[in-house]
Structures are given as structure tokens and as C-alpha cells.
């Protein structure tokens, strides 16, 4: 890696030599700047954590309270070694951030994950200018184009109404952190029946509520009376619950999954869900491209996901672009 790199892949994340810190490391390091609390970005074991103030409660819920936690305000620069670091809202989940690192080698911007679509549970994405933009690329192909959120929420409500008519429980799978709460915020005041939460979603949802976010009312599934049929109800559960014995309490249910992956029919059919709802907390292809323009970077590095297509496309547009695989930095050089 050239010496003028502000950031280099290391420990499953990125290392900044000038500032002696890591961004989203997956291994224990002395000093970590954490963009958000999802497990592929935040791990326990760092000596010091720097993360957006809004995201701290969720982060400590996920990684524990061992270590020194430094809350950071969006848009307020702080010094780390020979660099000036600023966090900006990423619009991904509550308290998610992008990172601007200014050093004598230039200004680099790093996304953890981000989206451009509106989300009532987090501060909207805010672009900033940088020389090099390290962009996530989870949905880095032009087939990924999200429908408007309102349309998808409408589809979910239509499906739920249909389930009520057929007296079937509507079981909706989604990620326990971020997506579940975003949906609950969208459904606030519009739910046609009770909403139940899988145990894994309860504490995180409480975290959101404690920070003053208005979410639709929910009850824990564990509190349901024995033999209760859930015939009018919506049940939110993480994808790991699909096919588990836990599902037996919802006889004749209809199942749905909320995810950007549901844009592809084969992905839904392979998982055996009845319905797929295309609602993502990541940027879609147009969102990725627009963000590159907004950041005004001359060089783009794609990370997190299969970024070769996006990098190739940007090169054809006259930008410098390449793809980094951060995961390989986790492997020790001697392993085969």
C-alpha cells in the first residue's frame, strides 16, 4: 500500500497510521472509530471507542461497556494523532456515521453503511467533500433500485390487512437493529392490529424508545397467553427465527421478509418467504452513484460488498476507482 494512504485495510476494517486508530475493526485494537452498531462494524475489545452520541446507547448494548466510550457530535471535528476526524450522519440506523479524516496526505471520507432514503429513526445522510471516498457497496449493481418507502409500507399494510381477512398471523422477518425500529416508526398510528416482537428485538427497540423515538406499540411474544392465535396480528422476528421451533406458535402464518435483497425474486424464493418487501437501510445503485457525485471525490474505493462493478462503472465515467476487500485483512499472511 502506498505511503500516502490515509487509511489502509487492517484488522477487518481500516487503519489510519497518521492518527493511530482503526475504523470499524473486527479485531480488538487500542483505538476504534465505530460507524454504527451492526456486528460487521462494531466488536467488543477496543481500548477506546469513538462514536456518534446518538448511537452510543445501541453500541454499548451490542459491545458491552468495557473500554472507554467517547461520544462525538455530528459535524464537530476532534483530533486523533496527526489527523482531524469528523463524524457525519449516515442515515443508515440510529446514530450511524460516516467518517471524514483530514491529514497532511489529504482528506478521506469513509462510509460504514449509509442510505439516502428518508428514515424517521435517524438523522439524514449529510454529504461532505473529500479527496478520496470509501463507499460501501452492499447493493452495487444497477438492478438494485429501491421503490419509494411509502409504496413499500403500503404493500406491507395491504399484506397485513389480507392476513387479517384470512385470520392468519403475519410474520415479518427483518434485521433486529435498525430495520425493525424503522418499520415500527413508519407504522406508528397506522397499525390495524397488535404488533408482537421476538425477544431478540425487544432491548434494541427499548433503546430506540428511550431516545425519544415514536414507534408503534409492541408486546413481547413471550407475554402472549398460551394458545393465543395471533390471527389479527403482526409479528416481527429476526431472519434467524425462520424455520425454528419458535415459529410453531404461529400456525398457518404468512411470512414476509424486509430487505433490499428481496428486489431479486430468486433470493426470496430460495428462502421460502411468501412475500418480499424491498426496503433497505443501504444505498441503492442510484444512491451510490449520486453520493459519489455529492462527495466530489476524484478517487473512489469500494468496500463492504462486491464493489468491482461499481468501481468499473466509475472508471468508465472518468474517475479513479478501485475495490478493496477488507475481509482479507483479517486473515494472517501465513494462512493458505
Amino acid at each position, binding site marked *: 500500500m502506498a505511503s500516502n494512504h490515509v487509511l489502509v485495510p487492517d484488522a477487518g476494517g481500516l487503519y489510519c497510521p497518521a492518527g493511530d486508530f482503526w475504523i470499524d475493526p473486527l479485531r480488538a485494537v487500542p483505538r476504534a472509530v465505530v460507524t454504527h452498531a451492526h456486528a460487521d462494524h462494531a466488536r467488543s475489545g477496543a481500548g477506546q471507542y469513538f462514536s456518534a452520541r446518538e448511537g452510543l446507547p445501541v453500541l454499548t448494548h451490542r459491545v458491552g461497556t468495557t473500554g472507554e466510550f467517547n461520544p462525538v457530535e455530528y459535524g464537530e471535528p476532534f483530533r486523533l494523532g496527526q489527523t482531524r476526524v469528523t463524524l457525519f450522519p449516515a442515515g443508515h440506523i440510529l446514530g450511524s456515521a460516516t467518517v471524514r479524516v483530514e491529514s497532511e496526505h489529504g482528506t478521506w471520507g469513509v462510509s460504514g453503511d449509509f442510505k439516502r432514503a428518508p428514515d424517521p429513526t435517524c438523522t439524514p445522510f449529510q454529504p461532505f467533500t473529500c479527496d478520496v471516498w470509501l463507499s460501501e457497496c452492499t447493493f452495487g449493481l*444497477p438492478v438494485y433500485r429501491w421503490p419509494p418507502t411509502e409504496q413499500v409500507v403500503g404493500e406491507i399494510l395491504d399484506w397485513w390487512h389480507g392476513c387479517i381477512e384470512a385470520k392468519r398471523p403475519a410474520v415479518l422477518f427483518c434485521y433486529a437493529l435498525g430495520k425493525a425500529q424503522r418499520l415500527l416508526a413508519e407504522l406508528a398510528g397506522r397499525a390495524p392490529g397488535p404488533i408482537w416482537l421476538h425477544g431478540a428485538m425487544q432491548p434494541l427497540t427499548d433503546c430506540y424508545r428511550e431516545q425519544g423515538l415514536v414507534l408503534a406499540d409492541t408486546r413481547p411474544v413471550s407475554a402472549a397467553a398460551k394458545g393465543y392465535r395471533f390471527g389479527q396480528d403482526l409479528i416481527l422476528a429476526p431472519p434467524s427465527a425462520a424455520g425454528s421451533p419458535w415459529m410453531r406458535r404461529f400456525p398457518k402464518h404468512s411470512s414476509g421478509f424486509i430487505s433490499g435483497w428481496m428486489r431479486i425474486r*430468486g*433470493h426470496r424464493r*430460495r428462502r421460502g418467504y411468501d*412475500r418480499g418487501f424491498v426496503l433497505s437501510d443501504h444505498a441503492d445503485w442510484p444512491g451510490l452513484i449520486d453520493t459519489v457525485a455529492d462527495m466530489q471525490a476524484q478517487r473512489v474505493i469500494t468496500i463492504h460488498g462486491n464493489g468491482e462493478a461499481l468501481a468499473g462503472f466509475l472508471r468508465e465515467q472518468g474517475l479513479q476507482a478501485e475495490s478493496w476487500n477488507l*475481509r482479507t485483512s483479517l486473515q494472517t499472511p501465513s494462512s493458505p
Partner: protein
Amino acid sequence: MKAFAHLFDRLDRTTGTNAKLAALVDYFRSAQAMDAAWAVQFLTGKRLKRLVNTRELRAWTAMATGLPAWLIEDSYEQVGDLAETMHLLLPPGHSDRDTPGLADLVEEQIQPLKTLSDEQRRDAVMSLWQTLDGSERFLFNKLLTGGFRVGVSKRLVTRALAEVAGVDSTLITHRLMGRWQPTAAAFEALVAPASEADLDTATPYPFFLASPLEAEPASLGLAHEWQAEWKWDGIRAQLIRRGGETYIWSRGEELMSGRFPEIEAAAESLPDGVVLDGEILAWRDRQPLPFAVLQKRIGRKKPGPTTLKNAPVCFLAYDCLEWQGKDVRTLPLGQRLQHLGHSMSQSSALQHARPIDFSHWRELPALRDSARERGVEGLMLKRLDSPYRVGRTRGDWWKWKVEPYTFDGVLIYAQPGHGRRSGLFTDYTFAVHDQDALVPVAKAYSGLTQKEIDRLDRWIRNHTRERFGPVRSVEPVHVFELAFEGIQASPRHKSGIALRFPRIQRWREDLQVRDADHLDDLKRLLKSGGKAI
């Protein structure tokens, strides 16, 4: 088109059979007959003749989206379905516009494409891409590209039609056989009350299919209530002799008239009003020839004298479905065989496949083990008092196939699958040792569990060596046991051999690459005529 798209959405949005059945019944009851006729056509797996090639479709997608061709290919690799890829890439259409019905779309817009110039064709398709939206556009693309699988079986469609018509589903199956055409009149006849008049003389009967026997034959009960036959390795076919005409139908319901002139000539000796079930085989000197010889005939619509001489065929009859113009399928097998005997005068191209003599179940394993030497696939076991049923009904007909050959091969290439397996590496190439190298010998797609597929997919992504388009070469680490049915020499393959129907038997995580088989082991099999290891 809106009604058909709505049906598709309902079928696509449930995994439950009853919900699918209800959606089909609702559609067939409410749709225009002409539209419903095309819906039957597509849902039962029939395709339109391809009028636009995929190269053109890709080019037009590039034109309509402004995307480079390679990015469209990358997208296709992820989606695993060209029709869907194009639909997802194209800018949203105008969903507010009125769209033609299914029959109008097919007959007025799609079929006329063949008479248009290249530019006109492009303009027609691109304009429909703007008019149609959502499932309608996806389905339009599916019709253009041919394949049409929406998670309903032909049997389910038949059940829905039977419910609409108020007749037995076997009658619907029969009415759909042969030369059924998607017209309004044909749909109305399809869902009409029962009558004998609606079948044309070329119409074949639905085939009765055997199920694989997993247990020992003795589990079937008393040996004398059963008949054993060889399981021939050819093309299942129905031979119809009615009104002085001969018709030969394949099990895929393809009319094969003209392809097997020697069988048709021999059929002229049959009495009128006879329908026989049997197998077409490459045949010489009272013996079947390898399937590879028959393959020389399969594609030939009008075989020349050389082909006729080098690859002679014969129809081996083993059941009689119609006798003296009467449907005799409900008679017990024993009686049907008597009719079969009466109808036949043996000739080289039309023969009576005699049952195998046996009196005790214990005689059968040895007979089955001799299958390879005899050039057959194994044994058929049929209950003597059973009627000729429809489709894959379990209980009366069993196939007891010989154990497949197996070998241990090394995974060297992987490629993403399609449909349900899109975006996952599920199409694998396996190699065996040849001196110091690994030489590819088989491609296989089936045999792993979803869990194994997911695990292997992750491994492949992390251990890719090189990419050639969608194909990835991987580190040779994993060994799999593969099964196959036969082997033949093939100058087209680097290994010099071609395996028939290879599939994965299991993942041999206990084996190292050095434990995999050698090409010489397989070639030895070739020398022995594929008869014994």
C-alpha cells in the same frame, strides 16, 4: 395482461398449494377464454418459439438504460434470470396506461415480431418496455426469452381446470395431450362437461409413470401378483394407429411423425383403433444399442439412408391402451397384455417386449445386477391387476434401477445458478487426476442440501483463484462423490470421455485431493464397454 399479471402475483406470493389452486380457479373462471387459453399454454410449460434472440435483448437493454454491456452481464450473474434482469434494469414503465390482454399481447404484438425488420423489432419491444410495468413487464420478458416457471406444476393447473369444468382431472390431462392449441374455442372445450367427442384421432393418452423403488421388491407383497420387465434405456413413446393413420408421441408430448419411418412402416400392420405404450430404442440383432446411437436419431426430423442404416430403431411395446377403438386403460394389466399380444405381428421395428420370467423375489437382485451387460437401466415392477393410471401415481408401477457408477472428483470450477439458485454458486465442475494435472470430467448441479450449498458458496467466494466471466476457478480442496449412469468416448472433451447424468452423491470431507480418482480408472470403464467396473 393485467389479469394474468395479477394471477402471477398471487401465485408468486404464496408457497401454499391451496392458495395457488384458489388463484388459478379464480383466474380461469373470470378470464376471457382467449386469454385463459394462452395462460394454460404457458403455465403447463409450453413456450413460444423464440422470436428475439438474447443477444438482441441485451443490446436493447443497454440502449434503453445507457449501461455498458459488461454491467448488464454482471447484473445477470447476480439475478440469474435474463427476463428479470432486464425488467429490473429498465427505467420504470407507465403503469397508468391500458395494456393489451394476454392473447392480444401474444398474437398481435409478440408473434408478429418475426415478420418485422431488426429495427422495427427493436422499436416494438422497446416501446412495450415503456408501456408495461411491474409484473406485466417481467412476464412479457419471460415470454420473449421462452422459459416460464412460476412455481405451479402442470398437475396443479390441471386440478384447477378440472374444478372449473367439474370433471375429473385425468380427463383434463387427456384433453391437454397432443395437438391442443391455445384458442378461445379450445379453452372452452377444455373446461366443458365430459363428452367423448372432443378428442381428435391423433390425441395420445396421458402416460403412466413409474416411481423409484427405494425398498426391496419383497416389500411389494406376493411375487405372483407382480410382473417384472426390463427397464429400457430409450425414449418413452406412444404409438397410435387410428383411421389408417399412425402417430408417434414422445412423453414430452412431441409428435414425432416422420422421424422413425421404419416404425411407422411396421405400424401399418397393426389393426385399426390401437394405441400402444412402449419405448423407442436403437436396436440391432435382438439387442439394444447404446443410448448414444439413439441420440443420432433424436434430433433428425427426416433421417437419411446412412442414418437409418447406422442407427436402426425399434418400438418395443409393453402396454396396450386402446383396442378396437376402445379405451382399455381401466382393464387390469394382464388383460391389456392379451390385447397387446393379439395386436402384434413381430417385425424388426415393432416388437413385443416380453415380461421376465420369475417366481420368487429372491431371483430379482441378480437380474437387476445383469442390467448393464444387457444394456438396460434396471427392472420395472408392475402389479398385474392394476389399471393404466395417469401421471406419477405411486403404488402400481415401480422402477428398480441398477446402482449408478460412482467416482470421487475434485471441485475445480463453480458458476452461479439460475432461478431459485440465482446468485449462489451451484453449478460445479469436477476433475480427476491425470498424471500431475487435474482434468475436468463432469459438471453437476444437483445433490447437495441447501445448507451445504450455502457453505460451499461462501467457501468458493473466499477461495476464488481466477474468474472467466461468470465462472470461477477455485483452489482444488474439496472432494465429492459423484454418481453417473454411463460413459462414452468423446473427442470433444479434454478428458476424452463424457459421463451420462452426473450428479453429486455426497460431499466427501473425509477425503483429500490426493484420494480422488484417476482418469485411467474411468477410462478402464470405457474399455469394458461401460458394463462392469
